[in-house]
Structures are given as structure tokens and as C-alpha cells.
């Protein structure tokens, strides 16, 4: 088949060494191979070609060809697309989070309009495993949350910690390790494989597991310019990207979900991490407002209340968080 010669630059917001990044490298290699070397994608890791907050603008203005960044960074431009990416306690695993997000984006007319307006198109998404507190002292009961300093960011997570009696603390990613070591933070808040990747098990030893979880979230897609995608690239290029993208997404979910159990097992066996027997998951649900409700309220202010309700109803039915 005849592919046009394309030298594409992809600005990535995280380092090359995490699972999703390796999937993106595979995607780039595979596209080059299957296009007979005509389409080359060079990836610039770790925000080197643009800080996270810049990447949407850089893609939609045509400054760069592709970007990898979470939609939750842009709640004003992508309020609907970024919803599943910003709300905790919605999905029990990465598989659900990814499946629901991709079908919402594919099938919700309002999301398509939002993407068109923002002039960006997501080729395929990635996922993360469920987030859990990972602490320097065990949280065994709901009372143990009292006064704990929990890693926090954004709009919804501080509310959740407050409702549980803890304090949300904004700590830079670079400083997480020292913050846990010195007690500036009592708990990190990550998926097990990310705890392993960031070495936080060296300074925090108490993990939750099993049903004690605060929800998986989907994460970054590979963004391209909407106009370029729809009006400039020939159909065979779009097809190639879509096909390889689907395979990449399948790889991502396999590798990511497999990494969760592996990471925990390794941390327990090799690093002395202990699994805490937390008994009050019901109380956690009782005390916290479902972030989806907060989000619906927020969307109502933007006259997006109806579609927000429709989306939440969809994922509650398709992928219930609690069985």
C-alpha cells in the first residue's frame, strides 16, 4: 500500500520507563513498520517538548503533530472527555475504565462536538490500575483516616479526603519520596505498579489490596489535530493508526493489569511491604459523596447537566464500581 511520507513528532508528558509509555513506543515502531517506513513517529518524553498544560494548545494549533497528556488537565476545554479521567471511585479496574471511556468517546455526540471544538482527536487511550492509599502507617479502620495527610491534587480528591477526616496535601511528584520519608505526607495515592515505578515502597510500607480500592481511572490518549485527522490525512493513514491504536490499547490493558499484582507481590516479598486488613470499605462509601454527583453539579453550571447524567448512568450500568 502507498503511504505518504510523514515525519511526526509526539510530545509525551511522562517518562519512557512506565508501561503506557512502552506501549506508545511500540505503537510508533509498529506504525513505521506497517507503513513500510513511510510514517515515522519520534517521541519526546517527560514534557521535554511541552509542559502538560501546553500540549493541548500545541496540538490543536498544529505546532506539534501528536501529544500524550491526560484530558483531566483541561477541565475547561474538555469537561466531558476528561470526566472519567478525573473522578475516583467509578471503575473497579483498568479494563472497565478503558472500555467505558473509549465507548463514551466513540458514541457520545456531545463529546465528539467538544473534541471538534477543541480541534483535537484521541486515537487511543491508556489506563491505570485502581488507586489506593499507600501509607507509612496502617489504615485499618475508618477512624485511622483521622488527621492523616494524604497526597491530593485537582478538584475532587481533596473533598474525598476531607469527608474521610483526613487532610489533602498537594505535594509535587518529585517530592513525594522525601515527603513520605519525613512525614510531610502519611500516604501516597497511586496504583501499585506506579508505587513500584516511583520507588515509594522504600519509604512507605503499608498497602491496601483486593476490594479495598478507590477506583481505577483511564488516562492519556494519543492526541492528534482534529482537522489534520479528518481533512488532511488520507483514509489509509487513519485506518493504519486506528488499527495499530486498537492493538496498542489491548496491549496496554493487558500489561497494565498484569503489572498490578506483580508489583504488589514483589513489594511484599522483596521489600517488606505489608498488606493492611482494612475493614470499613462500606463506611468509606457511606461517608463520601460520589464524585460523579459533584461532577454533574459542575456540568449543570455549564449547561451540560443532561449529557453528564446520561454519561454517568451509562458507566454505572456498564461497569458498576461496587458489585
Amino acid at each position, binding site marked *: 500500500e502507498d503511504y505518504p511520507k510523514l515525519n511526526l513528532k509526539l510530545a509525551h508528558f511522562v517518562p519512557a520507563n512506565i508501561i503506557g509509555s512502552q506501549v506508545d513506543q511500540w505503537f510508533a515502531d509498529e506504525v513505521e513498520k506497517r507503513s513500510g517506513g513511510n510514517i515515522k513517529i519520534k517521541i519526546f518524553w517527560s514534557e521535554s517538548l511541552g509542559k502538560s498544560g501546553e500540549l493541548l494548545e500545541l496540538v490543536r494549533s498544529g505546532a506539534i503533530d501528536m501529544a500524550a497528556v491526560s484530558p483531566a488537565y483541561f*477541565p*475547561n476545554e474538555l469537561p466531558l472527555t476528561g470526566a472519567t479521567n478525573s473522578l475516583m471511585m467509578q471503575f473497579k479496574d483498568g479494563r472497565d475504565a478503558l472500555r467505558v471511556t473509549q465507548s463514551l468517546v466513540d458514541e457520545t455526540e456531545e463529546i465528539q462536538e467538544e473534541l471538534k471544538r477543541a480541534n483535537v482527536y484521541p486515537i487511543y487511550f491508556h489506563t491505570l490500575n485502581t488507586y489506593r492509599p499507600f501509607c507509612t502507617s496502617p489504615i485499618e479502620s475508618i477512624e485511622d483516616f483521622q*488527621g492523616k*495527610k494524604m497526597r491530593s491534587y485537582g*478538584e475532587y480528591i481533596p473533598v474525598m479526603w476531607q469527608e474521610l477526616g483526613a*487532610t489533602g496535601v*498537594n505535594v509535587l511528584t518529585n517530592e513525594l519520596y522525601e515527603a513520605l520519608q519525613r512525614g510531610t505526607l502519611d500516604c501516597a495515592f497511586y496504583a501499585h505498579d506506579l508505587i513500584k515505578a516511583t520507588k515509594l515502597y522504600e519509604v512507605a510500607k503499608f498497602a491496601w489490596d483486593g476490594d479495598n480500592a478507590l477506583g481505577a481511572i483511564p488516562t492519556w490518549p494519543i492526541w492528534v489535530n482534529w482537522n489534520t485527522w479528518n481533512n488532511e490525512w488520507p483514509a489509509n493513514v487513519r485506518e493504519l493508526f486506528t488499527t495499530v491504536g486498537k492493538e496498542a490499547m489491548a496491549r496496554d490493558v493487558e500489561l497494565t493489569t498484569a503489572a498490578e499484582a506483580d508489583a504488589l507481590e514483589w513489594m511484599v516479598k522483596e521489600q517488606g511491604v505489608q498488606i493492611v486488613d482494612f475493614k470499613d470499605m462500606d463506611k468509606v462509601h457511606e461517608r463520601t459523596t460520589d464524585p460523579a454527583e459533584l461532577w454533574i453539579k459542575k456540568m449543570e453550571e455549564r449547561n451540560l447537566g443532561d449529557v453528564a447524567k446520561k454519561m454517568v448512568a451509562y458507566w454505572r450500568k456498564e461497569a458498576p464500581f461496587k458489585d
Partner: protein
Amino acid sequence: MRYALAWIDRAIGLLVRAAFTLASIAMLAIMAIGTIDVIGTYLLHSPVPAGLELQEVLLVLVIFLGLGHAQSRREHIEVDIITSMMGVGIRRWFELFALFAGALAFGLIGWRAWDLALASWKVGETANAVFSFPIYPSKFLVAAGASVAALECMRQIGRWFASKSIQAPDQPEAE
């Protein structure tokens, strides 16, 4: 004509000082919010809502609203190894070149920042935090700060052609 020029000279001087006063207030606010945030978080278990995001916005104001003042006092760092070896005549031409480069660079940054501010204003950009305050005013102020710095360069170009000292007249010397 001369009066008009003198008036423009003074007006730009006032703009520079106004921007700088705002920058100083922003600096003070960073210290205040940061301090209250630490005390609130670690003693009272209650951080300043959106404390981190507020400090970020204030920092960008300090940087850009202070640019014009630094330019007016010629504080932006220059490497003077080669120019210091040259004659006064040629040095003066280099000085003019540097002022044009400054006006161009600050002007371009201001213009692009203006577009950034407009885009932010159009979507009503708010901070991604518990207390979601509007972001776009800070983006307009960044555009304003860079533009004031560009104007200050132009004022200095005017003084260059009038063969006057480029240093702002009413600025006290650093101790």
C-alpha cells in the same frame, strides 16, 4: 512635539512602576499564602483552598509584571566581555541593536500571551482545584507585563535617538 515625547516618556515610566507595584504585591501574597498554607496544613489540618494554584498564578505575575522595571534599570543580564573592549561609538550602535531585540522579543511574547489570554477567556478558564478561581485575568496581566517591557524598550530607543541617557530619570540607584 517635544512635549508630546516627554509626556509619552513619563506615561511609560508610570506604567512600568504600576506594573512593578503589582508584581511586588504578588510577591508578598505568595509569601503570605504559602506561610498560611503550611501553618494551616500541618498545625490546623486545613490547607488554604487552592493554595498551590494561587501561588502559581502569582508567581507568573511577579515574573512578567517585573520585566519592564528590570529593563528600565538595565538589570537584565548582559555579557559585557566583548563590548567593553570596543570604542564608545560602536558600543552605542550595539546598544541600539540590543534595545530593538528587546522590544521585538518582549513585543512578541506579549502578543502571543494576548492570544493565550483570549483563548483562556473564551472558555472561561478556571483553576483545576477545590476552589476554582478564574485563570484568565492572570494571562491578560502576563500579556500586559510583557507589553509594558516592550514599551519600555521603545522609550529607551526614543531616548537613544534623543541622545539622552537611557537610564530612567526618576529611579533611585541600587544601594
